[in-house]
């Protein structure tokens, strides 16, 4: 039985009568017990109750996210792919380099192929992925996301197809007329795709996620913006526009990093400590101040722009993992939940 079915994970290999005898002997001789659930060295004092009034043996109240490695990667790819369609549409409006716009449309399309593959492989029953499209629920961010991804997929494919037909000089009536609305809707759905993932985390019971519900959509969208510009730069489009976008995205991510650093209290502990905290800080540093400083200090150097782009992409992808890990840590911490809810109760009482 794999981990996840119960809080302690799998059947302890030593869960046997012999092990029970060993535990009894150990307890009688040392007064300490190493339990099978991994709660090592519980101090056993026969005169005092071992569970306080604080929580239930330190176990989490909530269930941690069950999502596998595909989901944070999907957040990352979806963000880049979505914003690429925005760059393609706006760039088209401002008569930017057609080669770059073509690449942006290709990035969007590759994203629309990768995203469903990542999402479906995370499902417990992948063959039932179409069940996502049997209902439309405003009140489920996951349902909205399924429809956004489907819509974006269609528009991004059409936008690229029209662009390629025009690129190869194939004459079809009304094609140039159709191009504008298709690119527009691909940009709109792309924006939704890049930002809804923040709503998806923000509208859950996990304290560290819903506490940051205002920040997450903006954070993920900015991350997608910088990531999209970074890929265009790494593909050789070292235009002023990609430089400016990269600069602004790194600047905004620096602000996000500062906001996260200023968060305090038990709920925000996963942002600062443990695996999630370390990754969050490293990732935030890379896509924020590091990328920003490189762009400011060596703005005329080609290799520095590549370095800034790579830093931003690395920071962006690892921050998505950090957010999922932070959610896990948050679910495992009962005191964070109690602190948050007692504060809310006190606030409600003082209002009344």
């Amino acid at each position, binding site marked *: 039985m794999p981990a996840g*079915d*119960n809080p*302690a994970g799998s059947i302890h290999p030593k869960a046997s009568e012999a*092990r029970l005898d060993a535990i009894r002997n150990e307890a009688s001789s040392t007064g300490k017990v190493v*339990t*099978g*659930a991994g709660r090592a060295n519980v101090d056993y004092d026969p*005169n005092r*109750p071992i*569970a306080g*009034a*604080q929580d239930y*043996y330190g176990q989490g*109240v*909530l*269930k*941690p996210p*069950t*999502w596998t490695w595909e989901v944070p990667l999907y957040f990352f790819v979806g963000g880049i792919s979505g914003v690429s369609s*925005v*760059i393609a549409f*706006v*760039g088209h409006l*401002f008569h930017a380099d057609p080669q770059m716009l073509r690449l942006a449309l290709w990035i969007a399309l590759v994203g629309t192929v990768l995203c469903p593959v990542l999402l479906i492989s*995370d*499902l*417990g*029953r992948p063959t*039932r*992925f179409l069940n*996502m499209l*049997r*209902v439309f629920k405003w*009140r*489920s*961010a*996951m349902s909205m996301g*399924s429809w956004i991804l489907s819509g974006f997929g269609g528009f991004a494919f059409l936008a690229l197809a029209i662009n390629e037909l025009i690129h190869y000089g194939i004459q079809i009536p009304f094609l140039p007329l159709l191009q504008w609305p298709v690119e527009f809707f691909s940009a709109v759905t792309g924006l939704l795709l890049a*930002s*809804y993932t*923040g*709503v*998806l985390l*923000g*509208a*859950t*019971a996990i304290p560290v996620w*819903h506490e940051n519900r*205002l920040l997450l*959509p*903006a954070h993920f*969208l900015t991350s997608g*913006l910088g990531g999209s510009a970074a890929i265009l730069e790494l593909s050789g489009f070292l235009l002023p526009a990609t430089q*400016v*976008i990269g600069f*602004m995205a790194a600047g905004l991510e620096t602000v996000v990093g500062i906001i996260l650093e200023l968060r305090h209290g038990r709920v925000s502990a996963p942002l600062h400590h443990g695996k999630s905290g370390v990754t969050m800080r490293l990732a935030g540093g890379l896509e924020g101040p590091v990328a920003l400083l490189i762009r400011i200090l060596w703005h005329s150097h080609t290799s520095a722009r590549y370095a800034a782009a790579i830093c931003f992409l690395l920071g962006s992808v690892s921050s998505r993992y950090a957010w999922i890990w932070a959610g896990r840590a948050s679910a495992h911490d*009962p005191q964070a*939940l109690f602190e948050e*809810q007692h504060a*809310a109760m006190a606030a409600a009482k003082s209002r009344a």
Partner: protein
Amino acid sequence: MTHKAAFLTDATVCIGCKACEVACKEWNEVPEDGLVWSGFSYDNTRALGASTWRHVMFLEQPATAGPQQVDMENPFRWVFLSNVCKHCVNSGCLESCPTGAIVRTDVGSVLVQSDVCNGCGYCVVSCPFGVVDKRHPDGRAFKCTFCYDRQSAGMIPACAKACPTQSIRFGQLDELREAGAVRVAELHHRGYTDAQVYDPLETSVGGTHAMFVILGQPDAYNLPPAPEIPTIYLKSAWTSALVSALVVVALVCAAFLF
């Protein structure tokens, strides 16, 4: 056929026999949920989960109230409570489910339809009580069905049927809500001044179909003191998404004008 069915689970009469856990497993054919020595008093079940739909908690507490007669140096009490899915009036898992697999039944309970669930895992993080979970390697989400099959056939849920002390009472929501208040009043009268009904009516969850009579604070039972349905966060999160989207468009425009 009852409408608005409910559980009232009373910690003050539970003897910790775990007959409810066993009856639930037997009737619903729920698979094994781990064989681990937890070190948590006599509780080796540890928590509700995909394959644990009733969970008897064992609390070892300093007795803060009640008519204890012996060992007044170390006033102590051993409290048991059979935890279960709350079948919320406003249900986080139901609202979050993108496939429509989770539905409200005619008895007011919340049911995961296993033939529709595709295991996306969003209900798991949307439950403010940490009840529903994904079962491995099955891949789908599972939780208490409120024995909807038994109720449909006019029988009471297996756990309530098996309970030898009527700690688990099954009946009409309104009647049991009243019974809970009566029971707490009686307990207060008998000196258990920290007895209370756990039924979060004041929050966005709007009450539950599984209420509890507990001694002491809900925190000790890992019951959230003020659970909220996560959909209350949607408005601000989407507003942030839309405002950020506009800002991003403006920034991209500015970049191409530059």
